[in-house]
């Protein structure tokens, strides 16, 4: 079937609800409205109000009760309407979802998915464009995934539903309807913790994910360099071996992400490259990221998010060493 990312995730959720009788979807406007981005469209009519639950407007409530549902034997798939509103649920994720397994020595677990739209480039109001993957990836015990294609979105969602862990599932709004892809109609999994080599190359390695994947692809095409592009897909746990194997071969690495530069996820990747591939490096590891402050108002967003030219300049710079 041809599907954009919205349709692919919708299809995945449909298959999960069909297959797993304990699975429920909950969140604001996920029922009758089908979600503000229409990701849960049609599921309320198909599964009813008991399984596709319009909750009161409370992010901490949605995530906190999801944890309780999971502890109570259900399998909640929560939606927080925008990542910028999910900080209200941060306590529930840090203090509870992430720790139940370790503090009970695996006698309790929290199998749940928290979905939220992330990143910008679509001219939204304040707080609707955050890229928070580094916040959640810093918390051991949470799985953090972020697909960049409809195929990966569906496969990662189904895989996430089979994990016995809390999964933070980040969906880039800019990519929701950017393009369609031919994907299988039935269930399939995309491995969590495994990066995707988008294209092979020999001159340099670019590690990226989410909204920056199409930006990097275009920049590489324009640069005429042979770049290996790695789409992380899972931010935590990191697929370190795929990154290190590639960088050892190319000798050059750029990390490109939309999240802020300072203490961003690029720092983690760069540190691991320095640790495991320093003797193969022919240039310093570079990062291309948004500026080190919260996402601006939409009138300024193009000055803030990395674009193709910024990536191209980084490619030229790293190749000049």
């Amino acid at each position, binding site marked *: 079937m041809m599907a954009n990312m919205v349709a692919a995730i919708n299809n995945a959720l449909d298959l999960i609800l069909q297959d797993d009788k304990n699975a429920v979807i909950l969140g*604001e*406007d996920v*029922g*009758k*409205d*089908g979600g*503000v981005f229409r990701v849960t469209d049609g599921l309320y009519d198909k599964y009813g109000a008991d399984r596709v639950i*319009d*909750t*009161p*407007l*409370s*992010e*901490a*409530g949605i995530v906190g009760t999801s944890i309780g549902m999971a502890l109570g034997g259900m399998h909640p798939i929560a939606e927080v309407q925008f990542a*910028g*509103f999910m900080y*209200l649920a941060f306590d529930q994720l840090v203090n509870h979802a992430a720790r139940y397994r370790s503090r009970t020595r695996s006698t309790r677990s929290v199998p749940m998915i928290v979905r939220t739209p992330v990143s910008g*480039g679509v*001219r*939204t*109001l*304040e*707080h*609707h464009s955050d890229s928070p993957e580094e916040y959640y990836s810093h918390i051991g015990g949470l799985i953090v995934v972020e697909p960049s294609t409809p195929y990966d979105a569906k496969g990662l969602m189904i895989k996430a539903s089979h994990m016995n862990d809390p999964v933070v599932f980040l969906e880039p709004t800019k990519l929701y309807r950017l393009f369609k892809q031919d994907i299988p109609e039935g269930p399939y999994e995309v491995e969590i913790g495994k990066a995707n080599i988008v294209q092979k190359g020999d001159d340099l390695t670019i590690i990226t994910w989410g909204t920056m994947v199409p930006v990097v692809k275009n920049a590489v095409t324009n640069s005429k360099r042979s770049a290996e592009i790695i789409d992380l897909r899972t931010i935590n746990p990191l697929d370190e071996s795929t990154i290190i194997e590639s960088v050892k071969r190319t000798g050059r690495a750029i990390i490109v992400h939309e999240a802020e*530069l*300072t203490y961003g996820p690029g720092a983690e990747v760069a540190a691991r490259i320095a640790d495991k591939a320093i003797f193969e490096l022919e240039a310093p590891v570079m990062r291309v990221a948004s*500026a*080190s*402050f919260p996402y*601006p*108002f*939409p*009138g*300024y*967003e*193009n*000055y*803030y998010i990395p*674009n193709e*030219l*910024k990536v191209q*300049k980084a490619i030229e710079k790293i190749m000049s060493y």
Partner: protein
Amino acid sequence: MLKKVYDGSISYVQIMDEYGNVDASLRPDSLGDDKIIDMYKWMSYARALDTKVLSLQRQGRAATYAPLVGQEAEQIGSALAMRKQDYFVPNFRQHGVYLARGYPLDTFFLYWKGYEEGAVVGKEYNALPPIVPVATQTLHAAGIAYAQKFGKTNAVVVTYVGDGGTSEGNFYESLNFAGEFNLPLVTIIENNEWAISEPEKNQTAAPTLAQKAIGAGIPGVQVDGNDVIGVYKVVSDAIANAAAGKGPMLIEALTYRMSMHTTADDPTKYRDDKEVTAWKPRDPILRVKTYLTKKNLWNDKLEQQMADEQLKKIDEAVDKAEQFKPDPRSMFEHVYSFMPETLKQEEDAAIAENFWQTAGGAGE
């Protein structure tokens, strides 16, 4: 032993009904017909402003916008009840309050066009800029109210939250703090019956939202939010009480969201049009017009004159806002009270790489 340990009730106030009839026993003595004409003009002005931003948005000249149409009475009634020194803490739909508090319209437009310069609210307005995350501002309002008490300013803080916002923990926490510290805080719930696609009954099993005050140990009252006089009265009383040191108040204004949540929303997906139609006769502006016309205080000529004047001011403000040119350096200059070395490096690199030019400017 079994005994009743608490007994509470919630009153409903309406002074002007939907046919323009006024309950004289409740009408404030200070409220003459001249003031009702003012209220009418401000409500009409707010609607004209709303219509303008909506049309700018549809032409791609504004970002996402949250319309206020239908909620003019609760906003104008409460704004006019505030004294100059009182402090206004909004969410994201109080365009009418800004307007009636004399806030510059060109700055207002800059906010909705998507520039931080539109969130610059001069100290003289005693207000915060719009706050988008739901109900989080109610705690700031409690803190600002604490500061008024602490500084003995006699100012009262008035904050707004939607019916959906009452489901957020922060809302309860604010009422509880305000009650515990006996703060000069008036919290107005704009119950417009819809939180995007969810009707108010999806939010709570409580039959009124005003009764949420009871749990915090503070008084609560319900008012016809489409009755500008009723709103003016309950908010004036609440402010007078708070200014006299008698503490906070929760006011639930019953109104209706006649339009979409924001321009990104499509209500036809979840809301029966019949419901909207049923609210049309209860329009907040219409009933005041009926009242004034019956008393020969208003006519078509005055209406036209008013509309022309208001539109002229709105258009001038739009023109001024559209002259604005964003400077990306401003993003870096206002992150801290000082410029960190690492942030300066980022700014310098953006300039050296010519990034802002290649970025193609604002995405409007």
